[in-house]
């Protein structure tokens, strides 16, 4: 076998050999040449906010999980373990930057002000979209893997035509790296120097498939082949995620084009509430990642900085309890949409065909009700 063919090198992206990190699992803070310049404003207040945000994210997730088990939701894809990746990245954006998520970015929806009813409605099967994308600068969840990467790229291309300095960010998973759409998005982003950030939460699994099924190399290597620089960070380190996303966003905003951020994290729960991870992974693996828990880590860091974490925990608890109550209330108050909404918004200008079907449906329902 020839040795003349060079193997992919690890010098293309920052963190390919080992994800960049500044907060270690034990809570200690370390220096990082790439990231530190973007963390100069980090103070106790900010850290406390992150702690509260992440606690809320986790509580929202747990509550939704419970509601699903109780039969109130049809399905729920838990984010447990990915709080730092979602909060850290979201907090690096401006309110007018537009986010295109997948289906697991509940923390982002909460951060972007989506109310519990909106957050849960999709998972109750009551609607296909729980909020107005324009009110939150947040697209409606995307279930088709990879599709949103093109939307974010097109949105970013449009901001350039505008002359605006808004940035678009696409959230994608490790599985999504394999879809044609994701790769085409990188082609377009690169060619048009689109102000888009590809934020990949590598949570190690696409349902049952470990990330090695998608790629034998770090995912952050991929974009470099498209001429897109990449940063690979510890996704359970909220500060590393914040800094990396800030770098990417700044590049985008100042005409530097797309950047890819791989946040190396772990899906601590099942793929969705109908999944059974014991079929495809070992308990030891989960235990290992448990030790890297992003919230525990931040709490340790706060504690080691001399902060009274019990007070913060209490504060978070209060907010969490409130949001959990709100969620249960929202679910209790939610109602099944009118059946005739089936026919709403198919077209901007309704067609005779659909309106005829609506009329037939209404007449049918009336006749059945008339009978019973």
């Amino acid at each position, binding site marked *: 076998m020839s040795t003349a063919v060079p193997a992919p090198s690890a010098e293309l992206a920052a963190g390919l050999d080992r994800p960049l990190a500044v907060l270690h699992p034990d809570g200690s803070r370390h220096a990082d040449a790439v990231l530190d310049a973007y963390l100069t404003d980090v103070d106790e207040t900010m850290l406390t906010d992150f702690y509260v945000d992440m606690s809320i994210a986790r509580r929202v997730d747990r509550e939704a999980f419970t509601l699903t088990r109780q039969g109130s939701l049809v399905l729920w894809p838990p984010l447990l373990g990915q709080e730092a990746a979602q909060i850290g990245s979201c907090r690096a954006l401006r309110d007018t930057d537009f986010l295109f998520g997948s289906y697991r970015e509940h923390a982002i929806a909460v951060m972007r002000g989506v109310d519990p009813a909106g957050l849960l409605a999709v998972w109750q099967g009551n609607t296909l979209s729980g909020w107005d994308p324009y009110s939150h600068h947040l697209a409606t969840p995307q*279930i*088709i893997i990879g599709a949103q990467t093109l939307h974010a790229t097109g949105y970013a291309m449009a901001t350039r035509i505008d002359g605006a300095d808004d940035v678009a960010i696409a959230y994608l998973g490790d599985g999504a790296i394999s879809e044609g759409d994701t790769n085409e998005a990188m082609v377009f982003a690169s060619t048009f120097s689109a102000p888009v950030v590809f934020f990949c939460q590598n949570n190690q699994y696409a*349902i049952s498939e470990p990330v090695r099924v998608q790629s034998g190399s770090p995912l952050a290597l991929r974009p470099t082949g498209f001429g897109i620089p990449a940063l690979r960070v510890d996704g359970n380190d909220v500060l590393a995620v914040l800094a990396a996303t800030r770098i990417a966003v700044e590049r985008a905003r100042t005409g530097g084009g797309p950047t890819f951020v791989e946040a190396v994290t772990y899906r601590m729960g099942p793929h969705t509430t109908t999944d059974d991870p014991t079929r495809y992974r070992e308990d030891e693996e989960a235990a290992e990642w448990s030790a890297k828990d992003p919230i525990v880590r931040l709490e340790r860091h706060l504690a080691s900085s001399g902060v009274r974490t019990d007070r913060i925990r209490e504060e978070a608890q209060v907010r969490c309890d409130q949001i959990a109550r709100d969620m249960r209330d929202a679910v209790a108050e939610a109602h099944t949409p009118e059946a005739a909404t*089936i026919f709403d918004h198919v077209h901007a200008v309704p067609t005779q065909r659909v309106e005829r079907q609506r009329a037939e449906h209404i*007449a049918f329902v009336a006749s059945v009700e008339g009978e019973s």
Partner: protein
Amino acid sequence: MTEQLALGAAIGRALGDALDAEEKTVLMGEDIGRLGGVFRVTDGLQARFGKARVIDSPLAESAIVGTAVGMAYRGYRPVVEIQFDGFVYPAFDQIVTQVARLRYRTKGQVRMPLTIRMPYGGSIGSVEHHSESPESYFAHTAGLRVVTASSPQEAYSTMRAAIASDDPVMFLEPKSKYWTKGDVDTTLERDLDTAAVLTRGRDITVAAYGPVIRTALDASIAASDEGIELEVIDLRSISPLDVDTVVASVERTGRLVVAHEAPAEASVSSELITSVVERAFGALRSAPERVTGYDTPYPPSAIEGDYLPSLDRILDAVDRALGRRSSRTGMALTGGVG
């Protein structure tokens, strides 16, 4: 040889038996290996046949189908899974421009004995893209065969026939019936072309397939209470349609209702009704009726029951076809779902 199996398990059995029967058979798809598929249809097959023949693929549908084409080029008989109906569209180009045409393009030199399996249909109360019925797209695509099944026995025998066929077959598995049990005789063979008359009836022909068959049979029972006899036909093969069997039935009954979950416009029911009209115009005593999903995107699952063909909607269509009082009597807008 006969055993009680759920429909999903019957398909799994068929896959295992096919892997046993012919070493060039391979399975590929997302999560089909260790997990056994999200519906556990392929449960245990990777352990039994190894990772070389039961392949967990990367998450890319066009590549799943496109690499299967390459395997078929090399004499393999790939059976690939698309995880849900709503995720087949990224593979549409490979299906339409390659799978369906390679035999034609090469005048039979390249065989495409590919089976593309996918769970399809609604009623599982899920989120978007998990409840679709894309069969009309495939029926419109020359060169494909499109089949489904309404019972564990049909599922088993049709899957074996699909895998054995040298034609590419789209196998739409009625996911809401995966857990429905029935006797399966693994020696029972069946073709890929013919419909089956499930109930004989003199008043009206009701043609359906897949998950709607149960509803049609229930309608048949309900109608018989009112003295109306339904002749329920399980089309089984969605493309080609067994028009002969339907025409023969309509020649007796004079009336026709066609039901499926897919939207109506340019659909399998449009085709069946047009084909029957072309060939049995004189025999028809009233306009054929459709009972289908509406021409809207698939709605939120909380109201999918209103979208899908229901017992009452089928009975209502039967009433219309028979000229009896129906929901549309007295409506300003007359006529069918169009």
